[in-house]
């Protein structure tokens, strides 16, 4: 951003109070609530998928959605903190990287379980996998 600042300054001077200036302002200080709404929508889609779908693979995908919703929140808050300067903005980004790593590991383990399950039970439909019943 510091390398771009001469250009930005130039644009600011040419179109003071115009749409460009507004857009630049929006980039410099993005609105947190929009990201949170998008993340909430993603999260709800994910939860609904987990609760309603019967295919295990699809459930996995839905879990990924949930995780990504969380990631999005982290990134948004990180950017927000960078603006306000009231906290450590790097923490959110590092957490996101961690979550991606954990998600990858989880997917690997989970898919392994799915394959093992299929080999044993010849199904990945979870309403047929009801051994946890009393």
């Amino acid at each position: 951003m510091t390398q771009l600042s001469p250009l930005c300054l130039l644009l600011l001077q040419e179109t003071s109070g115009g749409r460009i200036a507004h857009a630049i302002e929006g980039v410099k200080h993005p609105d947190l609530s929009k990201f949170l709404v998008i993340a909430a929508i993603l999260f709800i889609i994910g939860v609904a998928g987990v609760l309603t779908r019967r295919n295990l693979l699809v459930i996995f995908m839905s879990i990924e959605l949930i995780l990504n919703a969380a990631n999005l929140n982290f990134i948004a808050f990180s950017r927000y903190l960078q603006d306000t300067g009231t906290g450590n903005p790097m923490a959110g980004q590092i957490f996101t990287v961690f979550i991606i790593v954990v998600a990858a590991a989880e997917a690997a383990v989970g898919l392994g379980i799915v394959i093992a399950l299929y080999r044993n039970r010849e199904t990945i439909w979870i309403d047929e996998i009801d051994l946890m019943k009393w």
Partner: protein
Amino acid sequence: MYKFIWLVPLLPLAGAAINGIFGRWLRFPEKLVGGIAVGTVALSFLISVAAIYSYGFGGNGLWPNPYVSTQTAFTWIPGGAVKQTLGQAAPGSGEAKTISIANQPVTVPAARSSLLNIEWSYQLDPLSAIFMLIVNGVGLCIFVFATGYMHDDPGFYRFFAYMGLFMFSMLVLVMGSNFVMMFVGWEGVGLCSYLLIGYYFNRNEAANASRKAFITNRIGDFGFILAIFGIIATFGTAQYTQVMPQAASYPIEMLGNWGLMSWIALGLMIGACGKSAQFPLHVWLPDAMAGPTPVSALIHAATMVTAGLYMLTRTNVIFQHSQTMMLVVAVIGAFTAIFAATIGITQNDIKKVLAYSTVSQLGFMFLACGVGAFVIGIFHVMTHAFFKALMFLGAGSVIHGMHHEQDMRRMGGLRKYMPYTYFAFMAGWLAICGIIPFSGFWSKDEILWRTASTNHIPVGWLLWIVGTIAATCTAFYMTRLMAMTFWGKYRGDDGKEARGDDHTRGKHEHHPHVPHESPKSMWVPLVVLAILATVGGFVGISTAFTGGKEVGGKLNIVTWLSPVIWNPSTKAFGAEPGEAPAETPAQTIRAGAPINIERQAEGGLPYGDTGFNLAHAVEAKLGSETATEWVFIVISLIVAGIGIGLGLLFYVKDTRLADVWAARLAPLYRASYHKYWIDEFYGWAVTRRTMDLARGVFNFDAKVVDGGVNGAAWLTRLSSKITGGTDKYFVDGLVNAIADFVVRLMSPIVRAAQTGLTANYALVMVIGLLLAVAYYLVKMF
């Protein structure tokens, strides 16, 4: 020089420690072990000789005052100082003081400098000096002898470690400056005696004998320790130098009066009886012969058994304050003398004969103490140490030469094979028989003379008769021993005498049945002791030979020891200068009681009328004291001659006579041969009763105590069954019933939640999440 006496007991201890700790570990050769042991004892002997010379004869000698090594001493058992709460009486001033408190005169008791601080310090005085010389000098001879006697013994280092420890204990006993140190030495020598009697621990009889000796000694020690408590309680200290002057100020307790001094003396006498093997407690000493012969010579003849005499003489003030106990000591001594002498006549084991002879001679010493002649008792201790150690070592040499044969019936004619041993033994024989001028004559004759002329106790004449008969028996059995061992013909296994010609000394393995002379390390000590046994008696030469005076100044044992002895006539320690101590004053006297009354009026007889007095009766007839003494000297020489003559008649001239007379006097012979069945009686009366008691107690334990315990256990088991049943059937039943009821009631409802469908569970999670968030939101707004 006498400042170095602390080294005297320490050196043998150091030698014993080196031998005992490193001897086996570093595999010391015999020469090194023997060198360390003999070297330390020799050094100790030299130091004690130098110390005693500088003490008694040196330029700044302290004699007759005792020297107590307080410079190098330390407080061994501190008792703390008495806190003086009233007045300012200086500690140790020893005088009561009257002070004024609130205008009232108050008498403050005399302050003691300390409550009871028992220090570890050594005392050098005439008595301990003599014992140091005996223990170290005779001990040195016996150590040298033992290096030869114990040759090739696997426990060589162990033997010398024990012997060194014994020397240390004995020296502590005689050199300690208080009764507690004497007790430490007393127990130490008892321990070493136990260890050394049981030296051949793989032999059952030795193990039994060592236990017997220890247990019998414990009985005596019990009396001794009670007496020590009595002394400490009475005098507030255990230090000799403080006890003796205090004891001297007590009144004399006449015959029949039983006071404090008599009680203390009784305890001391019990201790002395145990250690010195006097009559009721003598049984351990003959059995103690199971130990190696040098041990018998050192411990059970020359030194340890005389500890009782040392103690009696050390506490002669206390004994002389109790006429009753003096009589007891004299009677026990005289009885033991004749009792053991008659047993000695019939024994066949050479060491047993010597053991009973030792008991008998110790009886003579006690007799001397009992009649008030403590100095003569110590004199006899000394001469006895010489000749009895000599005879034991001679017996050891014989046993060594005979390849461990102790039965005299298989000896005989050894004069030819063992000339050195024979001539040395002969000196001992003449000494113990009491032939002038050998050492035993001087002491034994003096004992009998003092017994006959005693003013201390009644019935002196009776004790004199008993002692004279015992002396005759002594001469008889010693002649018998000589005859059976050295004279006549060799009665060994095969009876072949000629094989001795090609015999090589010291290699007896090759000729197992031929006696041989012992090596030089064994006969040289014998010769030294033989010389001592021959001339040693001159330090106490009878006044009859020297014109009624003690000659030789401090070299005369009577003069030398007199500062230790309390004189009841003058109520002071020691004799007045220029006057013979405890001698009867030269004056015209008549026989019987009136003399004593006359003397009592003059203050010369502190013990009052003691009845008929043989010496005084003879003196009244002859009119001269020296002549009377000569009469008694001649009598004792005659009875010694009778004893020797009978011995020669029975065992040299006609050897069948012994058997004939044994058959004629069969009951007496059997009684003597079986030692008057004392051991059997003790076995029946003490050992068996103890076992009965033990069995009874065991039965009580097994039946009553165990029964009680088992009954309690049975009761506990019963109650546990009841409570267990209650718990199992009632309490558990109730719990199970309730649980079953709850399960039956609730399970249809609760198990409906478990659908087994993953989606359901996830839904519940989501609902929970929503509820949590909702709760949070509601709370926020």
